[in-house]
Structure formats: structure tokens, C-alpha cells
């Protein structure tokens, strides 16, 4: 079956509002609730980490204890009790897996249900997957094919042991431990995530993908992703995520660091579909994520594309630091909020090098009683000669109980740099709606169609494997928002 049809079928299977709301019963290995030095030592020992890694974590914990949870974002949520969270939870018997056959069949079934077949024969052609279940990576597909090209794609817990020199050099190099409250927390307790290294001159032969699943109750997920693209290399990376439908809020505090050297390019795409909470605002994931890329080399490029439909609260600003001359940063975002969801998301483009260029296209859609904020920063430092930025931020409101907000910070310290920022807020026009209805579409179908059109500039940036699913997801996310 062609990939596209297969994906459509998977999506069609889902008729319920949040089709990933089921949970999997597995025997798990869990650390006690709460956070102290001992828990960090336990996580580190569970992962058989070297001493230096543990020290790095403990230092992060020290930093975190002195920090305060940020309050500047336009989001309201009940205070998180950091001592009431499990920081480590792993399905039993996942260690020392040699092949897929050894993976717990329950787990495989879970991923099948999520539309992510891990069996390489059944897998989406051309996509290698690292599957992270709660605190551990359960399996990474197509590793052999990738190794032949010299591409390293493995759980970060493994890379710490097998490629310590790369980890030591790059971890925390883009997002230091003290960067913010959640990056400090993540640095102390991260349990797994993906590690990617693309060697010089290699164009990664397939899309790399990590699929995150939070399953256990009261468990926080703290994954850490590190992607390094060496000179003249290219990789496209996809990230997906889901969680069971639960009444209580769960915390997801990830850190993603990207590094590109001379002439290298990383394309990072996310379809974020964590459980958003129910129609009454109960439950849902707190998604507090720090993502940042550093274009270290000249002519390098980092492109972020995100489709944010899930989570009760989102706090996320995938950013680019444009060090290298002629380097390029891009941010394409669709953020949809419905019911009681709150999203405060955007990007930072920090221009340091000459002739650096950045583009920001953000589409925010608010429905129900949700609040949707774009928060962005464009900074031209004195060295950013002839740098360019273009920003387009559009918001769409559906219904009169929601809010749409735009908060851009724009600074230039170089006269030859050029910044252009545009923002609009509007609603779906009655004319558009009527036109669609007169052609026989239901109101929900019409809204889905119009919103997809509104997001087109962003959706076309998604890899093909993702775009069909993302389009459907937009419709599903807005269910119940009209009429």
C-alpha cells in the first residue's frame, strides 16, 4: 500500500476525538516518586552511565534547585508538585535487546495502534524510528542501513556510552543547563531520547524519526535529543508524540539541541499531539520544551516545522542561533488550541554572522475557550551585516470565547540588517464559510478546509509522510469548535 494511503487509513481509523487515549498494561520498573540526588543517581545507574555524566546531572540539579519556575508566559496552570512525579519508569525486560523479536509484544502492539509499525518490513518506507516509551528507548529501526553510511542514530543513553567524546562536546553546548528552569530540570533527570550524528558529506538516506509515548500515570517524560550535522551533510528528522487520556496533568519537559557545521542542513519537523485534556479542561500534558539549534558553520541551515495540536499547556520556542556567515534559520509553525488548551509558542532568531537570513511563518488558530499566544524574538547583533529577517504571524479566531495574542520582540543593532514583521488577526469570513456550505460541505468540514488553507504555507514544509496526517489532525483538533 502506498505510504500516503496507509497513513490516511490509520487516521481514518480514529473517529474518537483523541484516538491515542488508550493506555498499555505492562510490567514496569519504576523509581519511587519525587526528586532528590538519590533519584538522579538511580537514573544514572539504571542507564549504566559513566561518572562524568552523573556529575553533569548533579550539577544541573544544583542549578535547578536555585531557579524559579518562569511566570512570564501567557499561560495559567495549577502549580506542579515536582515531588509528586515519577522520574523514571521503564517497561520491564527492555534491556539488552538484540532484535525486534525480543521486544514485548504488548509494546509492539501499542506502536502498531499508534500507526508506528516498528517491524522493519511493515514500517513506513524510508523512515527509521527510535521509539521512546516513558523513560526508555525501546527500539530503533533500520540501524544497520544507517550505519553503512556512517550515520549514528541511537538512543542517547547508548550514545553516552558508545560515543562519549561527541556527547561531552555537544551536550548543553546549545542549551546550557542554566538556560531555563525546565532545561535545568531536564539536564538533571533526562531518561532517554535520540542521538543523531551525520558525518561529513553524508546526505542521510532516510528520514529519521523518534516517536515519544507517555504511558504510565504520574510519570514525567524528560527526553533529550541531540542532532549533529557535520560539514556538508543533511538530515530530515521527524518527531511525534502521544499520551493516554488521563484525568491528571502530566509533565513533559524535553530538551532538543541541533548543531550544523559548514554547509550542513537539519530539517526538524514535529507533529505534537499529546493528550490535550478533555472538553472541560481536565487532564492533559504540560508541554514545557526547550528546542534550539545552532548554525555554527557558514552556509548552514536549520529549519523547524511544527504542528502543535495537543497538550493542555504548551511552552515552546524552537530557536536558531545564526553564528555562521550566510547561515539560514527557519521557523514554520501551526498552533491550534481548542477547549481549554493554552499555547505560548514561537521562536527566537539570533543573528550573529554576516548575511544571515531567517524566516518566521506562524499560524495560530484559537477555538473554544483556549488561549493561543505567539511569542517571538528577532535580534540582529552588531556583527550581523546585511542580515535579513521576515516574519509573518497570522491568527485566526473561531468563536468569541477564545483569545489570540502576538508578542514579538524585535531588536536591531546593525543598520545594514533588515527586519520586516507583519501580523494579522482575523476570523473565518462568513463568505468563505457560506461558499463551502453551498457546495455541500458540513460546517466542520468547511472549517477544517479553510483552516488547512490558512496553514498552507506551513503544511507544505512538512515531509510527505507527515503532511497527510497533520492535515487530518487539524480537522480533528477543531471538532466541536463550530455550531
Amino acid at each position, binding site marked *: 500500500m502506498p505510504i500516503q494511503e496507509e497513513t490516511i487509513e490509520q487516521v481514518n481509523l480514529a473517529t474518537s476525538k483523541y484516538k491515542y487515549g488508550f493506555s498499555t498494561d505492562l510490567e514496569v520498573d519504576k523509581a519511587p516518586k519525587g526528586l532528590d540526588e538519590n533519584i538522579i543517581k538511580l537514573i544514572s545507574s539504571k542507564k549504566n552511565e559513566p561518572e562524568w555524566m552523573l556529575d553533569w546531572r548533579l550539577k544541573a540539579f544544583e542549578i535547578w534547585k536555585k531557579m524559579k519556575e518562569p511566570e512570564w508566559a501567557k499561560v495559567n496552570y495549577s502549580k506542579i508538585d515536582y515531588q509528586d512525579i515519577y522520574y523514571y519508569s521503564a517497561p520491564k525486560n527492555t534491556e539488552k535487546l538484540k532484535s525486534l523479536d525480543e521486544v514485548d509484544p504488548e509494546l509492539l502492539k501499542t506502536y502498531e495502534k499508534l500507526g508506528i509499525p516498528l517491524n522493519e518490513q511493515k514500517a513506513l518506507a524510508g523512515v527509521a524510528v527510535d521509539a521512546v516509551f516513558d523513560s526508555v528507548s525501546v527500539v530503533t529501526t533500520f540501524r544497520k542501513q544507517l550505519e553503512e553510511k556512517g550515520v549514528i542514530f541511537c538512543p542517547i543513553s547508548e550514545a553516552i556510552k558508545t560515543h562519549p567524546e561527541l556527547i561531552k562536546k555537544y551536550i548543553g553546548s546549545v542549551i546550557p543547563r542554566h538556560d531555563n528552569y525546565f532545561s535545568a530540570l531536564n539536564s538533571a533527570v533526562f531518561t532517554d531520547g535520540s542521538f543523531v550524528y551525520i558525518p561529513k558529506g553524508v546526505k542521510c538516506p532516510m528520514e529519521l524519526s523518534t516517536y515519544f509515548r507517555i504511558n504510565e500515570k504520574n510519570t514525567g517524560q524528560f527526553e533529550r535529543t541531540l542532532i549533529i550535522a557535520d560539514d556538508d551533510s543533511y538530515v530530515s528528522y521527524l518527531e511525534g508524540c502521544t499520551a493516554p487520556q488521563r484525568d491528571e496533568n502530566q509533565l513533559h519537559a524535553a530538551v532538543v539541541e541541533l548543531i550544523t557545521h559548514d554547509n550542513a542542513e537539519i530539517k526538524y519537523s514535529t507533529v505534537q499531539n499529546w493528550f490535550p485534556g478533555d472538553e472541560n479542561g481536565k487532564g492533559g500534558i504540560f508541554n514545557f520544551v526547550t528546542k534550539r539549534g545552532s548554525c555554527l558553520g557558514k552556509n548552514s541551515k536549520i529549519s523547524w516545522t511544527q504542528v502543535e495540536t495537543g497538550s493542555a499547556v504548551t511552552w515552546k520556542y524552537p530557536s536558531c542561533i545564526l553564528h555562521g556567515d550566510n547561515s539560514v534559520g527557519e521557523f514554520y509553525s501551526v498552533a491550534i488550541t481548542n477547549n481549554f488548551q493554552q499555547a505560548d509558542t514561537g521562536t527566537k532568531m539570533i543573528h550573529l554572522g554576516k548575511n544571515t537570513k531567517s524566516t518566521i511563518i506562524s499560524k495560530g488558530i484559537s477555538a473554544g475557550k483556549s488561549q493561543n499566544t505567539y511569542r517571538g524574538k528577532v535580534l540582529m547583533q552588531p556583527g550581523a551585516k546585511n542580515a535579513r529577517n521576515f516574519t509573518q504571524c497570522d491568527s485566526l479566531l473561531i468563536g468569541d470565547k*477564545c483569545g489570540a495574542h502576538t508578542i514579538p*520582540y524585535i531588536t536591531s543593532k546593525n543598520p545594514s540588517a533588515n527586519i520586516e514583521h507583519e501580523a494579522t488577526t482575523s476570523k473565518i469570513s462568513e463568505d468563505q464559510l457560506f461558499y463551502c456550505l453551498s457546495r455541500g460541505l458540513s460546517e466542520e468540514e468547511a472549517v477544517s478546509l479553510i483552516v488547512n488553507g490558512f496553514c498552507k504555507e506551513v503544511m507544505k514544509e512538512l515531509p510527505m509522510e507527515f503532511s497527510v496526517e497533520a492535515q487530518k489532525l487539524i480537522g480533528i483538533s477543531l471538532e466541536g469548535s463550530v455550531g
Partner: protein
Amino acid sequence: MEINSPPSNEVLDFCNFFKQSFKEHGWPNSKIETWKMTPLQKFIKDSSSLKHNSKYLLSNNKNKFIKNVDINNLEFLNSKYFQKNEMSRVILSHISNAFEILVPKSTSKKETIDIKSSIDAGIWSSSLIIIKVPENVECNIALEFSLSSNSLCTPLIAIDVGKGSNLSFGLSVINSSKSLNASNFVSLIEGDLSENSNLEMVLTQQGATLSRSDININLNQNYSNYDLIGVYFGREKQHQDITTCVNHLAENTSSNQVIRGILDDSSVGVYQGGVKVAPNAQKTDGRQMSRALLLSNLAESNSKPELEIFADDVSCAHGATIGELDKDQFFYLLSRGVSHSMARELLIKAYLNEVVEEIQNDYLSDKLEKAIDFWLSEFKMKEVA
């Protein structure tokens, strides 16, 4: 004639609360979001050595307009904006002049109430000015503050525009001495608009080492409209800050804020512009356009054009650009034989002229045009030197 209206006991009583608060908290610090880009402590170092005095001069025989502050009108100071703003406590605990401009119903739209204030060296002028425009009148008010070295000017202005009225209000900050030494201007302005009323505001910030105008406009009733034309000029180490918030609180209200900045030498420009649309303010039309022109490698521009929208049937937009003179335009002029310096001058003038065109009130547009010419003449002298 001179306006000399020391605050009455009632006014002083009212200000007691702010005095207390000033003792506790002092000047606003740069940890506060709206003060992050304008670090006051860098500019205002020792305000306690300054003498308190506010002198205002009124052109021609308009003294019938000026009254002592009516205690009933002190309620304007109870607004959320004045109560919450950190500068209120600074201004209201130091006022030396408090007066009202009561526009009579019979005002002719041709006349302009022209008020000038010179702040001499060693003086801190802190005053409370209430402007009340009754229903169905058209009037023009121009306020000009001229600062000497080592002076401080902190006016607090409350404007109320009655139903069906149009007010054109000009505020300009200039420097009376050539040098721009330790002269600081920090103002707070709140405007309340009733049904079918219009407020056109022309803000020109040219003088003073530090100038900041913090403007809060409430479009309280249907079909009220606010237009702001704000122009700031920066040279040497000047810091120019325009901070605004327009609150759309009723249906069919509109606002348009146009900001132009020009920054030379190591000057810094700040524009923090807000448009807030309340849930019931359907059919709002809110626009902002801010542009900054950097003429030097050391100049810096900061913008934060914010939208906060809680109503769905609205049309809001903002745009912001920062950059240097357009290269294509420059080349076009050169190719017609215009010299580099003249092309620069012509393009700078054009960039500023565009907003002059948008001003409805001739008196205010002439005033701005003069300010532009003055700045350009200084700029040319620098180029020659």
C-alpha cells in the same frame, strides 16, 4: 500668560498614598517588563538634588480655559492604569503644578490652545494636567516641553473626550540648549474616549537625553477612534521610548498607530505598542505600523508591537520594519545626478514626510514638519563637519 497652579490640599491629600509608595519603591526598575528596554537608572541618577518647579506659558488669551483641578476630576487618577503604573508614584509624589484645561462648548475648531513649558537647569517639573473636552466640540491643544541640561520633566496627563467630539492633541519634547546633557522626560498619558469621539495625537520626541511617553487609551464606547502619529529622533546618546496601549472596550472602535523613528550616532529607540481587544469589542479595527531607520553602526532599535485579542470578529494588524535607507531608492536618485548627501537627506525627509501627510490638523502637521527640518539641519551640519 503664566499658569501657576500649585496643587490644592485636596490634591495633596490624594497624592499621599503615592508618596508612601514612592518612599517604599522609588523609581521603576528594569526588572519590570515595560522598563526592560529603558533602564531609567542609567539616565536619572540623582533626582533628589533637583528643585521642584513647573512653569507653563499659555499663548494668547486662553486663560478662561485653565482652572484649578476639580476634586471630582481626581477620579481619573483612580483608573487601573494610573494606579498600577510605576511612574504614577514618582510623578504624583512630586507635583508642583496641577491644572485643568476645560474646553468650553463654544470653542472654534480653528483655534489652538498652545501651552509651552521650559524646564531650566536644576529643575524637576512634575505636574498633573487634566484635559476635559465636552460633548460635540472640535478642539486643538498643543503642549510643548523644552528641556535644559540637568533637568527632569514628568507630566501626568489625563484626557477625557466627550461624545461626538474631536480632539487634536500635540505633545512635543525639544531641547532648549544645544547639548543633550542629563535632560530627562518621562510622561504618563491616559485618554478616555466616549461614543463617536476622535482623538488624534501627534507625538514628537526630539529633545532630552531620555524621552519616554507612556500612553494608555481607552476606547470606552462604540465608534470611538484613536490615531497616533509618533515620531522620535535620536542622535548622540539619546534614548527615545514610545510605549502605548490601546484598549478596545466597545464595538466598532478603531485605532491606528503610526510610529517613525530615526536613529543616528549611538542613540537607542524603543517602541512598545499594544492593542488589546476586549471580548465584547466586536468589529474592532486596530492597526499599528512602526518603522525605524538606523543611520549609524552604533544605533539600536527595539520594537515590541503586541496584540492581545479576545473577540473574534475583528481585524487587527501590525507591521514593523527596521533597516537603513533603501538601496534601490538611493541608486535611483544617484542615477539622476543627485549627490550622496542630498540623496540621503531627501530620503530621510521623505521617510518622515509620509507621516506628516497623515496628520489631519494643519497646526500640528506644520509643527512636526518644522521639527523634521530642524533635525535635518542639525544632521547636515554634522555631515559637513
